[in-house]
């Protein structure tokens, strides 16, 4: 996708700036005297709050495929999506680096941009191999073997993320109690006119059924089918760390099971590819601790409500003119997915 028209000269200028900036990276410093050049710079996606670019970095004889994530040009802070509590990009970069050091499959952060480089706020990382499109991961014959292993792998990967030492985490991560987050959700419902009795019912239920003895750790926050790169053997990289925060580890386990992220395979609760037992087995094999199934369901309901609020706030971005794309207007009609999923989950639990 390429939003808007980008002049060739802009692309050329930006490529030159990137080549210069990359010359200051550790990788380039390790190969002093090698020429640095950037080719095939291409915008992959971009909304009001984030730009993603693909580029090839030629360093001497080496060709290194990279991804650039940055705020839309000219912006110094992200706008509009305060309900999600997105991380600042340099914080996100630090987190991805830390996860990599602790054995989580992630891209390699190559360079965090600094102001004098004139490229805005953001960072560059390696472009890893793999498929991210959920429908392909769930249907293509080539992923048949991966599909059998994915749920277990997700459990293991989440366990490693949850074991990152709290003391090593970068500052700037949201650290709110469940009560505080539910209050935030109530404020969002109220702000948008409280038009959905089902979402309100779901929020009341979440207030009254908080799981006891929760732990506190780094939570990825958006760990789902669609944010994982996958090859024939399973996960090659965990993407999209911008919603990471401190919280209850079971949140991530419930999130990946939310029906909206099963992409039609409702009978395969984990991402549309696996079952609860595989996920929890994988998790327990690393942590020695097996989360309670009702706690997983609790966070699945939390994820359903979150999805409803995401749809609502994206629609709001359209209405207030922050992002006038058709997609933003259309996503408002996906709120009913959150509602039906909540009603199914709460059936027999009210």
């Amino acid at each position, binding site marked *: 996708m390429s*939003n808007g028209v980008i002049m060739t000269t802009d692309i050329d200028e930006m490529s030159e700036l990137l080549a210069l900036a990359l010359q200051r990276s550790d990788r380039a410093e390790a190969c002093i005297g090698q020429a640095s050049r950037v080719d095939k710079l291409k915008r992959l996606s971009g909304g009001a709050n984030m730009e993603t670019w693909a580029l090839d970095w030629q360093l001497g004889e080496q060709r290194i495929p990279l991804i650039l994530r940055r705020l839309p040009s000219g912006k110094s802070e992200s706008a509009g999506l305060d309900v999600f509590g997105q991380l600042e990009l340099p914080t996100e970069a630090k987190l991805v680096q830390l996860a990599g050091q602790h054995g989580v499959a992630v891209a390699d952060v190559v360079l965090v941009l600094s102001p004098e480089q004139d490229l805005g706020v953001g960072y560059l990382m390696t472009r890893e191999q793999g498929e991210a499109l959920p429908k392909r991961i769930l249907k293509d014959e080539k992923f048949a073997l991966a599909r059998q292993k994915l749920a277990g792998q997700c459990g293991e990967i989440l366990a490693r993320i949850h074991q990152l030492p709290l003391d090593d985490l970068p500052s700037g991560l949201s650290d709110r109690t469940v009560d505080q987050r539910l209050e935030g959700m109530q404020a969002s*419902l109220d702000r948008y006119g409280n038009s959905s009795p089902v979402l309100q019912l779901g929020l009341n239920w979440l207030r009254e059924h908080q799981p006891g003895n929760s732990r506190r750790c780094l939570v990825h926050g958006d760990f789902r089918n669609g944010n994982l790169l996958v090859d024939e053997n399973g996960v090659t990289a965990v993407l999209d760390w911008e919603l990471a925060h401190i919280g209850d580890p079971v949140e991530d386990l419930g999130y990946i099971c939310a029906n909206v992220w099963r992409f039609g395979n*409702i009978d395969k609760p984990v991402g549309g590819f696996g079952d609860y037992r595989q996920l929890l087995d994988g998790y327990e094999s690393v942590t020695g601790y097996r989360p309670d199934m009702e706690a997983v369901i609790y966070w699945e309901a939390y994820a359903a409500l979150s999805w409803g609020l995401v749809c609502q706030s994206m629609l709001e971005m359209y209405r207030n003119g922050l992002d006038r794309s058709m997609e933003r207007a259309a996503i408002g009609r996906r709120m*009913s997915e959150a509602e039906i999923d909540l009603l199914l989950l709460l059936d027999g639990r009210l």
Partner: protein
Amino acid sequence: MSETKASELVMAISDFLRDRIVPAVEGFNAYNARVAANGLKIVARELDLKPELEALDEQAGKTFGINAQADEIAMQLSLLIKDGAIEIDDTLLHYLRQRTLKRMEIDNPKYSGYREALKRWQ
């Protein structure tokens, strides 16, 4: 004989986008042409089903003693639920399920949760 229904016209435009325009363009435009075709289908279904949704809401207004326009009743109920001022009983749940099913029928009748809910509640 009658003139073209609004929903028929919108559905015809949607089919045109899906069958002729989506395959003819690429990338960003193809993606958005598909979003547009889907959006028009929602409009077409709403044109046909809105009276049924309003009938559900009006009936709920009578059942729960809410004196408001059809499109305000759900919001009023939501505020009652927020304040704990209404009992969450089978009558209320039945209405919320039927209303959500009707909205899913308009918004996305292919959604897996909708198929599952139909099996369970209808």
